[in-house]
């Protein structure tokens, strides 16, 4: 009876041993193989792996993680305060060292916070505000600063905690709350200046346009006056020539005619004429037909 179950028992034991000897490593994990609590080696290659059945496997997430330290205030090289919000992209690189020094991710973040904070404080302390926040792209040094900072932090974290710092980046640069009111005041003043400038420029342009239009108007009118007077002069000249040509055919008659014409215009009802009885007109009246 008992004997009949031996193969079954052997099979069960075999399966358990087999089960304990194989383990799957996922792409997302490191596996640290320990023997009675003592770390032996790390498997980083994903897939099926073998160990002794008495050894145990501990899984570590090797994926990239993000850690967001709280925004904190830093002093720049020229003694200005900046509130910097950074983030750290990191992952476990050496599980053995990691498990021996920090153990879990939360503790690792605490250590990372210290490393990154002091690195940030140190590098911001050597940079002026104008190299971080500047409208002049040539003066910008932030990228370079962060690259240096990342490699420093990475070096420190890897050698101490087995943690790889992939990236330290600045998510947000801001000014401390107590400075903001003065910043807003400055912004307002700047805007007011710009608005005034726009309006003044508008006036300037408008005046220029109006003056130009007035000049053109004068130009056009005076040129036309010049031309018109010339034309009138031509008319006058032509009529004078015509008259003189006609009148010079009989100047005596013209003199007579023109003189008589003048009489008609010169004398009106307010005129008193003193006529001599001797005159041409009255001679006949006074002396009769045969008067000389």
């Amino acid at each position: 009876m008992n004997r009949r179950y031996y193969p079954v028992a052997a099979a069960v034991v075999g399966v358990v041993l087999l089960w304990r000897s194989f383990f799957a490593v996922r792409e997302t994990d490191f596996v640290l193989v320990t023997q009675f609590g003592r770390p032996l080696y790390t498997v980083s290659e994903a897939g099926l792996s073998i160990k002794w059945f008495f050894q145990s496997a501990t899984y570590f997430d090797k994926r990239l993680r993000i850690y967001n330290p709280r925004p904190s205030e830093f002093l720049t090289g020229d003694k200005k305060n900046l509130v910097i919000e950074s983030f750290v992209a990191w992952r476990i690189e050496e599980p053995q060292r990691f498990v021996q020094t920090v153990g879990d991710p939360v503790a690792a973040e605490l250590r990372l916070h210290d490393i990154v904070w002091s690195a940030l404080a140190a590098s911001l302390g050597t940079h002026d505000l104008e190299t971080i926040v500047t409208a002049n792209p040539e003066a910008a040094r932030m990228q370079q600063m962060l690259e240096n900072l990342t490699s420093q932090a990475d070096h420190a974290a890897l050698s101490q905690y087995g943690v790889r710092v992939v990236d330290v980046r600045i998510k947000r640069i801001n000014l401390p709350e107590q400075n903001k009111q003065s910043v807003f005041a400055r912004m307002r003043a700047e805007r007011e200046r710009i608005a005034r400038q726009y309006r003044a420029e508008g006036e300037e342009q408008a005046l220029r346009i109006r003056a130009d239009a007035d000049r053109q108007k004068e130009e056009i009118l005076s040129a036309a006056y010049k031309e018109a007077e010339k034309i009138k002069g031509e008319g006058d000249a032509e009529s004078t020539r015509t008259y003189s040509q006609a009148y010079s055919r009989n100047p005596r008659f013209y003199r007579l005619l023109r003189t008589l014409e003048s009489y008609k215009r010169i004398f009106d009802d307010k005129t008193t004429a003193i006529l001599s009885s001797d005159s041409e007109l009255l001679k006949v009246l006074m002396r009769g037909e045969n008067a000389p």
Partner: protein
Amino acid sequence: MNLLDIGQRPAKTHDHAHPHTHDHHHHDVHDHGHAPQVRAPRGKWIWYLAGAWLLVTSVYLVAADQQAVVTRFGRVVEPRVGPGIHISLPWPVDRVTKLKVQQLQRLVVGGNAGDSVTGRTQPLLSQFLTGDQNILHLRVVIQYSVGVPADYLFRSQDVSLLVGATVESELARRVARRTVDAVLTTEKVAIQEEVRGAAQIVINRNRLGVLLASVNIESATPPPEAADAFRDVASARADLSRIVNEAHGYANSVIPKARGEAQQMLESAQAYKLRKSNEAAGDAARFVQVADEYARASDVNGRRLYLETLEQVLPRIRKLVVDRNGNLDLTILRKGVEPAK
């Protein structure tokens, strides 16, 4: 018999999650000693089950908008499987993860979507510092899709957080290098493109497996503390163009009017010239004709003309006739009204 049982057992043991399979397995062991003659039909059931299990766990369908990643004992063996029906090794050896790669995912950086609904502002969340140390409120919408499925699945813990933070850092850096006016107006599109490009490079380097479709600055507004001053600048700009337009309007009315006047002056000068020369021609023709007649009998005609003129002139005027030898008392002229006695 035993060999068959044992051979199947490891597979079954893996399959604990499937209650049905487990039941049948148990059944099989129970029946083992008592009824060997019914083993054959019972054995069939195991084959059917194994067949069904193979079919269910080793054939998989990838939909048209999906891609799949196949892992064998955790290791990626097929990083990118396109749409269609495919075969893999049965569970739990192979695992298939399907992803909707083309589906765009949306992230918001800066002022979050809740703001516009509740009207509440979260200043710290949306404030960015510009290069000329102005504070601006930005809201940026990121859209991304899966680029490399295997990286997307296995390389990082929280892809969207990392993507958002990366884009935000690139945005902050670029805004910090420009003036407030550039960010608000001319450089907006350039910033979007630069941020997208730079963030994509970082994403690729960190192997997040994400393809940024767009980085869009949805709103860029000055802080409420200075908003009215910014608005005043906008209205000043409008004033500028209004004043300039008015001046152009003035110019456009004055110059054509002057041109019209000029034309009028020229026309009237021409008319004057024509009138003058025609009048002169007329007068001259008349004079010439009269003069010719006069020349024929100048004495008579001269006298006639003289007398005719006097007839016209003298009736209108007061006349004093004085004798050639008489003295004239000029006092009558002073009285004016009295005719000579």
